[in-house]
Every structure is written in C-alpha cells, then in structure tokens.
C-alpha cells in the first residue's frame, strides 16, 4: 500500500504530473470518440439515402455495376 501511495505522490509533483497525463488522455480519447461518432452517423445516413435511391437506379442499370463502395466496415 505504502509503495503505491508513494508512487502516486510522484515525488511531490503529483498535482502537476497526473493532471498533465489525464488531460492528454482525455483529449486523445475525446477526439477519437467524436470522429468515430461522425463516421458512424454519416454512414447510417448514407445507407438510408442510398436505400431510398436504389429502386430508381435499378431500373436504369444492372445491380452489379453499382459504383458505390460497400460501407460495412
């Protein structure tokens, strides 16, 4: 226990070291989460839009020439 406590004290600079590391982790994780959220919602909207569009498109061209990439990541 004492050794853990001493480690967490960081030689008396805990008040600077842990906030610095915590803030770095927060920013990195937040950027990742927000970007993933953007990507997922965008892909969902795109799938919906393409689903409503497909019937019209199918009349004009055969389905296997569909140029859009497959969005299953």
């Amino acid at each position, binding site marked *: 226990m004492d050794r853990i406590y001493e480690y967490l004290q960081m030689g008396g600079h805990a008040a600077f070291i842990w906030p610095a590391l915590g803030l770095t982790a927060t920013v990195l994780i937040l950027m990742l989460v927000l970007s993933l959220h953007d990507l997922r919602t965008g892909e969902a909207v*795109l799938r919906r839009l393409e689903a409503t569009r497909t019937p019209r498109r199918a009349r004009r061209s055969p389905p296997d020439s569909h140029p859009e990439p497959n969005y299953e990541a």
Partner: protein
Amino acid sequence: MANLHRFANPNRFLRLSRAILPWSASLTVLLFIVGLYFALFASPADYQQGETVRIMYVHVPSAWIAMLCYSVMAAASATALIWRHPLADITARAAAPIGAGFTLIVLATGSLWGKPMWGTWWVWDARLTSVLILFFLYLGHIALSRAFDDPTRGARAAAVLALVGFVNVPIIKFSVDWWNTLHQPASVSRLAAPAIDPAMLRPLLLMALAFTAYFVTLLLLRIRAELTSRKIRALQLAQASAE
C-alpha cells in the same frame, strides 16, 4: 502524375484506408501499452527535474505531432490549390481539428510542467508564443473551412491560410536557437548526440511512435467521415434537383 491521381480517387482511398486502419489501430493500442509502461514505471526520475520528467513523454510527442499535422495540412493545401485533387481539401479539413487537439495538449502539459520547474505557468517567450500562434492558426482554419454550408467554398481560403501559416513551423522549431528563450533547446533532434539518457529516450520515442500511429488512424477515420458527408451532400442535392 497518373499514379498520384489514382490515390486521389476517393473510392481507391476508401479501399486503401480500410486495409490500413486495422493495422494502424492495433499498432496504436500496442505502442501505447508498451510506451506507457516505460513512461510511467520502467524509467528513472531526472537528476534535476525528478518525476516531472514524465510530463515530457506526452508533451514532446504532442509537439512533434502538432507540427507534423500542420505540415500534412500545408502539403494537402498546396496540392489542393495547384492540382485540385479531390482528396486534398478533404485531408486538410480532416487534419485541422487533430492538430488543434495536439496543440492544446502541448500548451496545457507545458504549462503544468512549467509551473513546478520554471516557477511560472506561462511566459511570452518566442517558443511558447509561436506555439500559441499555431493553435490559433488551427482554429482559424477550422472556422474558415466550415464558414460556408458548401464545404468547397471555404476550402480555397482555408488552404491559403494553411500555406501562409506554414512560415510559423520553422519559427517554432528554431525559436529556441535563434533567440534567448525560457524554454530549453531541442534534446533529440540536434547535430550532436541526443542529450537524453537512453533510459529516458526509450519511453520518449515509444510514446512518439504511439502518437504517430494514433495520428494516422484518426486522420484516416476523419477523411472517411468527411468523404461520407460529401457523398450525403451530393445525394441530397441530386434528390432535391430530381424532385
């Protein structure tokens, strides 16, 4: 040039990014585990700075990535202005928030390091001021490239801003050599051998690699998100004109 255009093709990029992403993502996780182990446990305290040297392991890699990200953004902006590659504007736009995030980390961790070591949270020396300017350049780019509903309209102005702001990158790098600053000069990238003991250089370089892998992963993700939203926009416009 024909080869470059092949990579600039959005569908080709999507296929390429889908091949790279699993690798870069797992590499990020792996490098962070190893890097953090060395940075937090398996490295000694500094003879002068004690344990605060551990702040260096996130502060310095963030600074490197903040400048790398700006260089990527400037290169993409030049490509967009000169060759009008469809992916170039998208790359610059996707990179700006990442750079702003890393610059924020540099400023905040530097401040938390400066207080116990220098005796101050902030000084207006050439290094600190030029990094603050970098942060504002990123914010300006974000605002400018998103100022219009049509993303292509703000892109030209944002690209010019990115290129003009690029003069700041060498200023940041060499500020500590050109002028007297409170900030110390470079420890790793200098002509002589690094002024860091191998026991401390190891966690620093591992963390730098982890940050780089994270940067690549996040940039690819954001470019994909950006491509998706452009497609949505194009579809909506097509539908609106069809109705």
